[in-house]
């Protein structure tokens, strides 16, 4: 059926339903937002129960840790256990704990105190680490995306050339390697053997964080290896998917047609191939965010980078529920929100996507 942008919807319809039908954009946004909320809730609930059902009672262990300090003859204290259970929202049955958790999260926007750095709240810890992770991840991801897109388009366009075939095979090989594997090898070669880059920490501690160029250089210097480990894989997988898209697009009728029209190759590349290529890649970006965070945990741990991933590993060792859950929720929230934003804005960029 023809859908014309100019043609008015002339059938008389009633109520909200008809209003929504008449405003497909808003209807789409609402539907998308509801789906977002449902997935968010589902994923948060999933993780809540996941963590709580893990065997290993943190409070018993925790109180034990406190007791170990005592040199002589300390007995157990029921008061202590009780007190900490209530502090950490662990009193009551699982369902009550869940309600408590949701209330705390939704109403108070509070993750509760950390175990890792009691009585500091988990948010403080997370917020302290977040800038590093965002800096590292956002920059390396974005950079990979742009670079991957450009190079991928190039090797797709010149797909018959020997070099491009080699490049794409290389990308296939690299794009599935785990981040840490690259990290290990980079550390071995560039840090250990050649000593070009430092292999730990986020900046030279001799500097105080400031906007001093020396400090910034130091941050860059220390960030290079972790960023590289993310980017080697990032760039090659973006290259690969861009190339695949490019090859698909090159096979599309409208490209053959553009060629038949006798357009200049550059114009075909930019206006016909690339324009169709980068839009789907924006969606792809949203989808990959999730897995990037996964890899990031390892990379940060390997480079002792003071970000969320590093914090997470420490929190796990202490079974710091609040921090663990805070980080996972944040990751889920981030990925879902990024996807929501992309989904809401993409149709504005891509005329093909209809709001249904």
């Amino acid at each position: 059926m023809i859908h014309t942008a100019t043609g008015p919807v002339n059938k008389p319809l009633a109520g909200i339903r008809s209003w929504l039908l008449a405003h497909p954009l808003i209807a789409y946004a609402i539907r998308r937002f509801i789906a977002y909320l449902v997935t968010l809730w589902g994923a948060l609930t999933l993780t809540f129960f996941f963590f709580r059902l893990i065997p290993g009672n943190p409070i018993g262990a925790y109180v034990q840790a406190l007791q170990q300090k005592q040199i002589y003859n300390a007995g157990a204290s029921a008061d202590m256990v009780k007190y900490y259970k209530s502090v950490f929202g662990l009193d009551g049955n699982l369902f009550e704990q869940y309600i408590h958790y949701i209330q705390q999260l939704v109403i108070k926007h509070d993750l509760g105190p950390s175990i890792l750095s009691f009585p500091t709240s988990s948010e403080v810890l997370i917020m302290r680490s977040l800038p590093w992770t965002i800096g590292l991840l956002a920059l390396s991801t974005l950079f990979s995306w742009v670079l991957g897109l450009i190079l991928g388009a190039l090797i797709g366009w010149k797909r018959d050339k020997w070099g491009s075939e080699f490049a794409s095979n290389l990308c296939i090989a690299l794009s599935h390697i785990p981040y840490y594997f690259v990290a290990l090898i980079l550390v071995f070669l560039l840090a250990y053997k050649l000593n070009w880059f430092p292999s730990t920490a986020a900046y030279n501690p001799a500097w105080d964080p400031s906007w001093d160029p020396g400090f910034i250089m130091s941050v860059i210097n220390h960030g290079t290896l972790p960023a590289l480990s993310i980017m080697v894989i990032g760039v090659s997988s973006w290259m690969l998917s861009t190339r695949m898209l490019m090859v698909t697009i090159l096979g599309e009728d409208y490209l053959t047609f553009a060629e038949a029209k006798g357009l200049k190759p550059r114009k075909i590349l930019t206006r016909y191939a690339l324009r169709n290529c980068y839009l789907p890649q924006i969606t792809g970006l949203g989808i990959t965010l999730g897995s990037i965070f996964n890899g990031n945990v390892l990379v940060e741990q390997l480079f002792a980078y003071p970000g969320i991933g590093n914090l997470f590993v420490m929190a796990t060792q202490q079974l710091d529920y609040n921090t663990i859950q805070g980080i996972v929720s944040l990751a889920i929230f981030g990925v879902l929100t990024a996807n929501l934003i992309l989904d809401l804005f993409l149709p504005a960029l891509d005329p093909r996507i209809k709001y249904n």
Partner: protein
Amino acid sequence: MGRFLQAMHGLWKSSHKVQAGVIIITFFIVVALLSAPITALIGHGHDPLDIDVSISPAWQSPNAQHWLGTDRVGRDILAMTVIGLTASLEVGVIAGLISTVIGTIVAFVAGYKGGNIDNFLSSFTDMFLVVPSFPLLITLSAYTANVNLFTIALILAIFSWPFAARTIRSQVLSLRSRPYVELAKVTKFNDMEIIFTELMPNLLPFIGVGFANAALGSVFALVGLEVIGLGPSGTLDLGLMLNWSQQWGALTLGAWPLFVAPVVVLGLLFLSVNMINIGLEEVYNPRLRKTAGA
């Protein structure tokens, strides 16, 4: 099945990459299967993994007795590599199998039944996909009791099935309304028969690729856990060797094989699976090759 073998043969003939990949992986599998006699051979009768520095001193450099030297407690690194490879492969295969089975079942139920079942299962799968799996994996593996190779594989599979489920489901969706499925329906096939005789055979390549990826993914996920020292078990595998090489500062002591051997083996393993993947892709996606039969 004749067709299947024929297709395999065609595949083998049509791509050097597939050949190379298959050869490497076959070699590894053979080594893994023969790990017991091989380690016995390496140990010249002794158990090369036994700890006794009076018999086998620590931190030996590669020598005639120990081709790759020994570790902090005098274990033979070559033997460790062989055993480690075996364990890694075992975990990979079990995890790959479990996740493929779960993924395939979910995919078939969701894709074939459709409707609300599909909605529910798909949302569930999607949720699994947005939850950052590695952190959960870390937590789960740190706190699971009575871990053995099988439990680890099970844990790894929990996080890898959704990928298989998603790709296979979309294939099932595209297949289930194929006329031959409808023909089967009017020939009185029941759902199970349709799934197993009509859909499944055509999805074998997808299931196979899904299995390979899940297996490889699990091997690497486990190695990843171990590299940062959070491996769930003490089973000697390649990741644990990497961890030790870091923990013990093996490089400073000149014991590079403790680091290099597992890296090389993992690299080759990875390369072989991907060569097969590339090869398959080139054979099945004609757009990716210049001329047919490349």
